[in-house]
């Protein structure tokens, strides 16, 4: 209950924090690019719209997840709003989970609105019937899952670091996370055994974000654009991976935050 109360307030905070401008920007980019690119790619307009639309959802979502995620806890500490809050019957883990859930709701609303924007653009373009839109759902879902993980990552840093450093750390890990498979490959090429081990450890410890973008060695966004089905069992496995990883990151945030002194 306390978690939901905090989540609701975090959501309200985010909504009043001008994120919606991002959406307007996104919608503009999408509409403009689809009109312009539609004329360049004869016969492939629909694919281009889906490709650009989903990529935009992923990019803007990641930006929101990082930029709000890193200030989620830090802002409460910096402005000392956390003092009055934690002096109430609120466990520290409830605070962290509430904050996380609140931002997740914001992201969900954003992703839903952006997806509606994408569908409207497709409708405006014409040629796609109702069931055609449904193929967007698995791709959007996987994007949201990766955003949930990115948010949890930003939250961990937010519990002990300044926003600038947190943004840097989160961004680095986000980038590495997308090329995680290369780490293992890179390690294999190493001659020294300790380095091989190091790269293997990094491969397992760092989040593998390409899990969310590539399924059966096919890019999810491309699959949606080319009307290729996405394997539901694989999606289930990725969901399990995402939930587990988020759980670990949230536990880490809670441990760090619970040990903190508020000077």
């Amino acid at each position: 209950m306390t978690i939901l109360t905090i989540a609701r307030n975090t959501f309200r905070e985010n909504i009043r924090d001008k994120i919606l401008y991002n959406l307007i920007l996104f919608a503009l980019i999408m509409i403009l690019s689809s009109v312009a690119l539609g004329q360049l790619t004869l016969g492939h307009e629909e694919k281009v719209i889906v490709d650009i639309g989903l990529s935009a959802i992923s990019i803007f979502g990641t930006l929101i997840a990082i930029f709000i995620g890193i200030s989620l806890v830090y802002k409460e500490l910096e402005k000392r709003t956390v003092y009055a809050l934690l002096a109430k019957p609120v466990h520290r883990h409830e605070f962290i989970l509430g904050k996380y859930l609140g931002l997740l709701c914001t992201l969900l609303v954003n992703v839903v609105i952006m997806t509606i924007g994408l569908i409207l653009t497709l409708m405006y373009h014409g040629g796609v019937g109702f069931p055609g839109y449904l193929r967007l759902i698995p791709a959007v879902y996987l994007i949201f899952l990766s955003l949930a993980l990115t948010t949890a990552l930003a939250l961990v840093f937010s519990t002990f670091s300044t926003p600038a450093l947190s943004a840097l750390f989160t961004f680095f890990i986000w980038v590495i996370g997308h090329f995680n498979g290369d780490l293992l490959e890179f390690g294999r090429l190493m001659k020294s055994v300790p380095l091989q081990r190091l790269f293997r450890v990094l491969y397992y410890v760092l989040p593998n974000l390409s899990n969310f973008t590539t399924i059966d060695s096919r890019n999810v966004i491309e699959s949606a654009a080319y009307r290729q089905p996405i394997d539901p069992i694989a999606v289930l496995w990725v969901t399990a991976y995402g939930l587990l990883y988020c759980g670990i990151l949230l536990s880490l945030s809670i441990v760090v935050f619970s040990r903190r002194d508020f000077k």
Partner: protein
Amino acid sequence: MAVIEIENLTKDFWVGFWKKRPIRALDSLSLRVQGGEIFGFLGPNGAGKTTTLKILMNLLRPSSGDARILGEPAQSVAMRKRIGYLPENPYFYDYLTAEELLTYAGSLFGIKRTDLDKKVSTLLERVGLSDARKLQLRKFSKGMVQRIGVAQAIINDPEVVFLDEPMSGLDPLGRREVRQVIASLKSRGVTVFFSSHILPDVEALCDRVAIMNKGKLQEEGALEEILKVKIEGHEVILAKVGAQDAAALKDLCDEVTPIGDRIHLRAGTSRQVEAVLSYSIRRGAELISVNPIRPSLEEYFFKEVTEGSKRSDSAPIEFNTRS
């Protein structure tokens, strides 16, 4: 019954980047606050008042020692349903309106929505913010923030309220309002523990006080005990006194100070007061006031704390003695 029990509480902060060294912010503090009293926690800046309050609120962990509120350890989350807290220089979510902030605070205490609306209205009225209920906190003045802070601290009808510098930054009117709220809490049987360095407020409100300096408890007890109240004489203020009469009055009392068109006389004994009064009335002077002189907490503070810090060879101490 003691509602706040502090036993040998010590807090060290570790400072420095490479070579960490401890700074003792709180040194073996032991205190007991009884139910229903207003307890003043006094001391200059850096005396350890906020550190103590933060340990009591479980925002800081003590290096050693023990703190209990209402018989439960300070770390207990369940106990927090029964207490209220106003942080020092409070800052609340500025994107919320006064009403929303109190509703949020109330729902964290698990107060039912139906009761909450009524409670929020009553509280806003009590702290004089009824007109600002729909105003976002970013538009609040400092005094208004302080008052909404007091309101959020008492939304759960707490048994004990902790207020960290509740009067700081307030104008005289705002301070009087906060003072009234504190007094009304006492009349409802609430224990109030508040830290301050504004002495007149403490003198006006507190049953007992503790005086802190450099992390150590310097003295604790009833205000009268600490001040050892005895009337040191009277101050008589007169107007319409001629120069000749002023000279004559000098012989009748200890000290004469002309201030503007009035003169202030200090009479050590009641006999002197009598003599001054009968002379001045006979000579047609106008009597403005007669007041007993006793050492104020302020004077005590200066004496004790500066002496204490001289002993421990410390930096100069700042006090806020505005009344």
